């Protein structure tokens, strides 16, 4: 077991380095660099001006040298300076990551609140109309693009009812209640999407668990249905559900990219998208690094959980 854990952790190191290399190389393959964007609005830009700015950002050096420099920076915890916002990427990440994390967690919580009760009900009443209805809801949740539901929410209520979701960013320190109110709507949109997968999973897991012997035993002991379901069945069904939630990081990331722009949220997703459009290499690298580490950590955690739950798993 311990040996497996150590191996598994060691294995993430090359993966991490590969990811860093990937992102470093791949963004430099896209035509257009930050200098083109920065100078796009200045007339009479000479080649010398462009070259000087490239030199200023260190883009004139050969790729391998840039990469070595970057790795050197990484070791000291420096992610470079964003060419788009002219501030250190670490500083940007420090202010933006908590917002996106909060957004993600809020969405997951909403997703769970919606999905788990419905999923359980749907499993208990398998193949009833309420089952079909709730599953349809779940699947519909993942069938509509985020940007579309968000646009519907932003455009129509103000026209019909004179109401709009709060679209002005409110920081958690200046007004905690306003902040939660602000976060609620985008989190709901993302949460409903996450709920779709969680609901389906909860239902399936519940169905599995309900067929298990110990549940029958619990029933035969004369325990009430509520107790059996919520105390015995759900607890066991939820383990895979929770681990799977971690795998939805990817979905959540693309969701935050779209929703943060629509709701004016100064998070990581917006920073990332701006970074891409402005060819802000340090920003893209920094953001991908964070997302990738997070994904790797989650996967590591999931694998270790599985190993812990099922000791037969060997690393192959």
């Amino acid at each position, binding site marked *: 077991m311990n040996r497996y854990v150590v191996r598994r952790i060691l294995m993430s190191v090359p993966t991490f380095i590969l990811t860093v290399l990937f992102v470093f190389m791949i*963004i430099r393959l896209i035509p257009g660099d930050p200098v083109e964007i920065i100078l796009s609005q200045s007339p009479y830009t000479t080649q010398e001006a462009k070259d000087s700015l490239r030199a200023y950002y260190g883009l004139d050096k050969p790729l391998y040298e840039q990469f070595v420099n970057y790795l050197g920076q990484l070791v000291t915890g420096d992610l470079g300076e964003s060419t788009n916002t002219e501030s250190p990427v670490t500083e940007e990440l420090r202010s933006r990551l908590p917002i996106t994390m909060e957004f993600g967690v809020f969405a997951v919580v909403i997703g769970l609140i919606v999905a788990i009760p419905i999923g359980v009900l749907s499993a208990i009443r398998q193949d009833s109309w309420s089952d079909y209805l709730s599953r349809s809801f779940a699947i519909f949740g993942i069938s509509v693009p985020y940007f579309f539901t968000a*646009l519907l929410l932003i455009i129509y209520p103000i026209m019909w009812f004179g109401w709009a979701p709060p679209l002005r960013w409110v920081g958690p320190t200046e007004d905690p209640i306003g902040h939660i109110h602000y976060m609620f709507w985008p989190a709901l949109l993302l949460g409903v999407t996450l709920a779709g997968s969680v609901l389906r999973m909860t239902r399936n897991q519940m169905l599995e668990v309900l067929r298990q012997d110990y549940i029958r035993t619990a029933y035969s002991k004369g325990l009430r249905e509520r107790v059996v379901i919520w105390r015995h069945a759900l607890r066991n069904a939820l383990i895979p*559900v929770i681990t799977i939630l971690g795998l939805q990081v990817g979905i959540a990331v693309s969701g935050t990219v779209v929703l943060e722009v629509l709701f004016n949220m100064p998070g990581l997703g917006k920073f990332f*998208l701006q970074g891409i459009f402005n060819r802000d290499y340090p920003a893209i690298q920094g953001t991908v690094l964070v997302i990738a580490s997070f994904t790797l950590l989650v996967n590591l955690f999931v694998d270790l959980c599985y190993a812990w739950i099922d000791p037969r798993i060997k690393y192959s």
Partner: protein
Amino acid sequence: MSSTDALLETNSRGPVAEYIRNSLYLNAIRRIVKEKPLGLIGMVMFAVFLTLAIIGPMIAPHDPNQLGTGPRLEGPQWGYPLGTDNLARDMWSRVLTGYRVSMTLGFIVVVTSTLVAVILGVVSGFLGGWTDTILQRFVDAFIAFPGLVFLMVVQAIFFGFEFPFLPSSGIMSSSGFTMMLAMTLLVSIGNSRIMRGATLSIKSEVYVEAAASLGATQSRIMLKHILPNIMATALTIATLNLGGIILFEATLSYLGLGLPPDVPTWGGMLSREARNWMSQAPWLALGPGLALSLAIFSINVFGDALRDVLDPRLRGR
């Protein structure tokens, strides 16, 4: 565990297995019809949409792209059931043509990506050892990498490349091809992980070990035993991916990275015409939005049912 699965796993060689496999898919359809009303609805809807993908552009009353085939920005009315957009085009014709575009895109990506995923997964899972370890590190790194960046990069690199054998416009044009290529890579590498898992579990089955001990070559085992038995998993994954791919196209369009405007995609309609004009012309959002959501809905529902009857192991993925 279903009866077919049980049969399959105990008798996977010889004519019996062949027979069972051939009837497996028919059988699955039969079971969906009998046992899965929701899946049935999805299946019927999906069949309708497939038909529309084939005949849609033929029955479209107007050219979907031609300017001025209708009034400008008017709501649903006789002759224009879904209204018209700000370039005075018939939305109904555009939505109908969108079926073919989305389904073509979806199917091509699904088929190619599943093929690649199966090859990668089987090779990695079956060969094991260093091949597996190294391949999986790459897969790990790729999965940790945000898909959006990857799609953008591939699109950007290939943009401006004129593939000589492709037409100059439409979904099969160079830009469409580039998008499909990017999506194929993205989807297949993620899926190869699942195919590898399926390979591993079949590899450890008794009959495979028996075949190996009887002296069957590796390629024979792969082709005769492993491949046929992971096909159900592959099919299910493919169906479930189809919706995601169509959705991805819409998101890319929204971000301004979609197909050129002369390819009428639902995502394009939503993020060009609808996004700019839907406040005064809600029908611009209604047509493509509904078409997109219903198509993905039906695919997902059908895929769920297919998964239940074909491959219960995949539950919870």
